[in-house]
């Protein structure tokens, strides 16, 4: 356990220490790319790393890392629909893990195709996973070869010819993994050890060894092997995936919850990570993909922990405080709007129409209510009563009714208005305004200050602006 981080650290150290361009064997890394995420993420990759580490040289490590990245990018660009790739990538791993645990026997016995089919048939969920991985592999391979993008799905038939090759490759990988990791991995290798004998196998073995070692160091042994052993051979995904799962299971079981939590908190579906998006080299960028691949068994825990984050007392307390403050603020604003007004009502009864003499200007309501009641003959010869507002239209001073001169005179700036309120001298720009006037049920005149009528707006023709006597 204590050694977990070491691989990661070694790789990082290697990068920092040496500036050697990383261009090793593109094909091999390409294959290994998908598995890389696990290794990179957390300080606790896999238990297996111990063995392989010492053997790798700095240069090799650098090459490896570089190749992986290139492979990822290539895979992405290769055309694996980003959405598919991302989404499928994450579940695929889990599903593979599940398969690895639950479907070991099946794999061992059945040929590749049979395996894949059987798995698909049996476990609806796991099946898709396999394909997704296949996609990534294929894409990578395709990128490596510059060949056309391969369909991501489990096109077992297309690759069937390669089957022998892959099997061997697998067997190698498995053996290696078994030898190194023992325990968890050991179980799987026996199942797949079937037919390593073929001549092809040897070559792949040698070639793969490096990649496998690296992968094993990270816990991703199987995949690298696949790619290196001739693209075709490598195409076989399932066996490797199964193996990967084996080692990975152990590794991931060891991972601390922190990473999962972080991922969970990030709310990431973990899809994007597998795609290997990070172009820059920074080691920090890689941890996330690994976090994505969490053992299926841990899902519940993740959910619970994630839930705890949001249901914590701290969260509740802050939310409650914020809500209370928001409500209080609103109430305080609302408080400033009076629910009861101390102002007088806007309507006032001013007596009966016949209480006013023809031609009279009544100042009874000027001081308290702010209007004159005028009875006069209008332009059309009608005998009408209207209520004139006592505010000069210049600056709002109260004019005075000069009975001798028969005009309203403003004391402030000398504006003058005729009896009907029309301005004729001084700075006043327009006639005085009328208040709404009408008759109440009891026959009294009612003046409503809530509505005014302006002559310049032709509102004096409104029947509410005067009262015919």
């Amino acid at each position, binding site marked *: 356990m204590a050694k977990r981080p070491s691989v990661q650290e070694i790789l990082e150290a290697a990068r920092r220490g040496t500036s050697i361009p990383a261009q090793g064997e593109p094909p091999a890394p390409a294959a290994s790319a998908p598995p890389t995420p696990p290794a990179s993420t957390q300080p606790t990759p896999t238990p297996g790393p111990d063995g392989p580490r010492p053997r790798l040289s700095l240069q090799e490590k650098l090459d490896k890392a570089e190749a992986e990245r290139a492979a990822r990018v290539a895979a992405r660009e290769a055309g694996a629909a980003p959405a598919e790739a991302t989404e499928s990538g994450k579940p695929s791993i889990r599903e593979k893990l599940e398969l690895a645990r639950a479907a070991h026997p099946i794999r061992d016995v059945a040929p590749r195709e049979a395996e894949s089919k059987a798995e698909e048939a049996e476990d609806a969920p796991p099946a898709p996973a396999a394909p997704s991985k296949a996609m990534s592999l294929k894409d990578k391979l395709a990128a490596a070869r510059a060949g056309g993008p391969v369909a991501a799905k489990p096109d077992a038939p297309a690759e069937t010819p390669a089957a022998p090759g892959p099997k061997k490759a697998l067997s190698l990988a498995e053996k290696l993994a078994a030898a190194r990791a023992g325990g968890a991995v050991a179980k799987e290798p026996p199942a797949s050890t079937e037919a390593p004998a073929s001549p092809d196998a040897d070559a792949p073995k040698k070639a793969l060894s490096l990649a496998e070692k690296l992968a094993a160091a990270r816990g991703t042994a199987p995949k690298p092997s696949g790619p290196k052993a001739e693209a075709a051979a490598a195409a076989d995904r399932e066996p490797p995936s199964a193996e990967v799962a084996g080692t990975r299971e152990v590794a991931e079981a060891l991972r601390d919850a922190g990473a999962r939590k972080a991922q969970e908190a990030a709310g990431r579906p973990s899809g994007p990570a597998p795609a290997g998006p990070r172009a820059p080299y920074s080691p920090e960028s890689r941890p996330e993909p690994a976090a994505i691949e969490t053992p299926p068994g841990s899902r519940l825990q993740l959910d619970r922990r994630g839930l705890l984050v949001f249901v914590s007392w701290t969260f509740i307390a802050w939310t409650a405080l914020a809500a209370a403050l928001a409500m209080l603020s609103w*109430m*305080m604003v*609302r*408080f*400033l*709007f*009076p*629910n*009861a007004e101390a102002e007088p009502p806007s309507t006032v009864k001013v007596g009966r129409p016949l209480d006013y003499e023809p031609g009279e200007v009544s100042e009874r309501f000027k001081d308290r209510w702010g209007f004159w009641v005028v009875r006069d003959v209008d332009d059309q010869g009608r005998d009408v009563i209207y209520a004139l507002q006592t505010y000069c239209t210049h600056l709002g001073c109260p004019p005075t009714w000069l009975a001798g001169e028969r005009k309203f005179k403003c004391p402030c700036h000398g504006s003058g208005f005729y009896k009907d309120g029309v301005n004729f001298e001084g700075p006043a720009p327009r006639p005085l305004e009328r208040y709404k006037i009408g008759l109440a049920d009891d026959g009294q005149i009612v003046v409503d200050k809530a509505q005014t009528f302006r002559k310049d707006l032709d509102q004096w023709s409104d029947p509410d602006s005067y009262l015919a006597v």
Partner: protein
Amino acid sequence: MSLRDRIAGSQVWKSVFRHGPPTDRRNRTQAILSNLYLHMHPVSVRKQGLALSYTWCMGGATFFLFLVEVVTGVLLMFYYRPTLEHAYNDVLALRDVATLGVLRELHRWAAHAMVIAVMLHMYRVFLTGSYKPPREFNWVVGVLLLVLTLLLSFTGYLLPWDQLAVWAITVGSNMARATPILGLEGPGADLLTLGDGVRLITPGSDAMYVMLGGRSVGEAALNRFYVLHCVAIPLAASLLIMVHFWRVRKDGGISGPL
């Protein structure tokens, strides 16, 4: 560049917050020291200063309640008119008509709680011996604050202008009549006499008269208490609170052993 970075990097933000995100000790310190409101609190505190069982946090509770009184009191002033015509009706309207009718009750409850908190605070300070040198002056300041707290309660009691208020203040202000020397009926009032029986302390010149602005509780008293309650005493209390807090820091921090 994320939105957060853009905001944190803007001139507006930087003109207000002179420090970086509080992710390291220096910036955390800066966050406290460069903030007018937070800098009153020490950057670091003794563990004992945080122990609720030791401090009871009654000083903090008192200050909090004081702030509650300020906020609710200011809001109440928007509607309350200290006149014989309006005072009582305005108080009723604050409860029955205005939105947030509980405001006046909040003001009242917080006032009661503040008196209790001040008492408990003094009790704790006494029990922990925190009045001893070099904190003896701060104890005195605290006593003055206690007096101001009680005066705030007393002056506020009249403002509703109901029977309870008027007669309670009548009784309370009658006590001023017993003030030594300055109270009409107090001991030593005879001492302030000019020549042959010309007394300086009369019903129209003693302590009670000054307090009420008249010989009995009337509109003058109401207005006087209103100004005292809303302006004069809170200002004095604020000043003393600043001194009090400042001395806490200067005298060795919150009630830690010296």
